[in-house]
């Protein structure tokens, strides 16, 4: 089964992290990504630029409405994701718990709907 691990962190808190600690964090992410690649769980993943760079698009009655910022204001913001292959939810949870961001933020674990499931639904 595939799972999307969504990494939520407070951008305000992130902004306070000194550059040296930030570098250590990136290194830790690199190591983690390598580990789950070696174990065959990694499918994809990326960090995201801050929500200040986000744009929201809606189409209503055929009319395009483009606004700045993320869809909803929240305490923690989506800052990156991994797409993983795991045997079951428990394995997905233990991989999510190893993401460096899990210690300060939170990781949402979402099962991916397979294409056949999507057709049935």
């Amino acid at each position: 089964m595939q799972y999307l691990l969504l990494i939520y962190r407070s951008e305000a808190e992130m902004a306070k992290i000194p550059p040296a600690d930030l570098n250590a964090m990136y290194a830790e992410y690199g190591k983690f990504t390598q580990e789950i690649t070696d174990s065959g769980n990694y499918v994809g993943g990326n960090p995201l630029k801050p929500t200040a760079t986000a744009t929201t698009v809606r189409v209503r009655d055929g009319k395009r409405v483009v606004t700045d910022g993320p869809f909803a204001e929240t305490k923690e913001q989506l800052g990156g994701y991994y797409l993983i292959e795991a045997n079951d939810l428990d394995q997905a949870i233990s991989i999510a718990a190893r993401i460096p961001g899990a210690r300060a933020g939170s990781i949402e674990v979402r099962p991916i709907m397979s294409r056949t499931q999507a057709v049935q639904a």
Partner: protein
Amino acid sequence: MALALMDFDKFHREESGRILSTLIRLLGDFDLAEETLQEAYAVALQKWPMEGTPANPRSWLISTARHKAIDRLRREQRFERKAEQLAKTSEATVQPESEIEEDMVGDDRLRLIFTCCHPSLPLEARVALTLRTVCGITTEEISRAFLTPLATMAQRLVRAKGKIREAGIPYRVPSQEELRDRLDGVLLVVYLIFNEGYLASSGDALVRQELCAEAIRLGRVLCALMPAQAEARALLGLMLLHDSRRDARVSAEGELVLLEEQDRSLWHAEQIREGTEIVESALRNGAAGIYALQASIAALHANAKTAAETDWAQIAALYDVLLRTHASPVIEVNRAVAVAMARSVEEGLGLLDEIEKREELEEFHLLPAAQADLLRRLGRNEEAAEAYRRALSLATNDIERRFLRRRLGEIEKL
């Protein structure tokens, strides 16, 4: 020899959880397992009285349900491959009419308990699902016990089973490194089931008694399947000790009877002996968590011949530890009462007054109720009456309200 209808009900009650857990493992699907087991029971009800009960009713039911499942999957074409796979794999696992290994069934139950108590399910769904699938209690009975409309309870179960399937919640005992956290979650569910039966005041008394019995049964299963887990044993001991007082806690008129005033001859002595032994063995094996501490307190109460002989000093000391490790308003109030009984009523009252000054517990009726009781003991009747009135304005539980009103009436007469 045919099972009489009464025996069949009893068999259904005792076995359905075990049979269902094996079927869920074989079929990998809660709903399919539940539905085909119902069909298998229907066949059994027709056949057994005529042809006699099979030598091993349990494996007969499993095998019949499995065949029903294969038939059904074959009818639904898109699951063709799954049906063939199932036909192959489970043929090897279950030989009809043969004795299924007891420990295999035990492992199935344990796996099912961990699945039903998975932390990614909402807590109320974990409780309902455990009662439904592990204990084999009907959705109707669960909804009655929790005073929840049947449709809501059914929906809750459907959603939980849906999440197990869709999110890939495994049917497995957690690995050693996860076991501790996950076991805590299982124990919490068992304790919630027990408390629902033990503490709640309204609803069907028989159903409530049944909930306590189910929780104790679950506790026994956990202890039997994981004998190394001392905390599980501490919880079982705690439940046995509390439940041993069931006949003395409520009077014939449905009034709450305080521990101090209970007729101790109504306590179940054999259950107290067993509970105490289990708690002691849990403590010897290193249990020191919240259940072990509460169980130790319960054991001190249960083994006091009279209320006056209660070892309040030790109970107060245990509450000190509980307060350090698991601080909560209820524990703080209970500790103050223990101090009042162990040392002096004034000292206990002083502790309660300090809690009151923090103004964190303004909605909490147990605080004024405890104050009222200590004031009454000191003969400060007017203040006691005032505190009872405060407690009454906050209490929502019918039995507790009746008790507080009775006490207030007694005080006002003085």
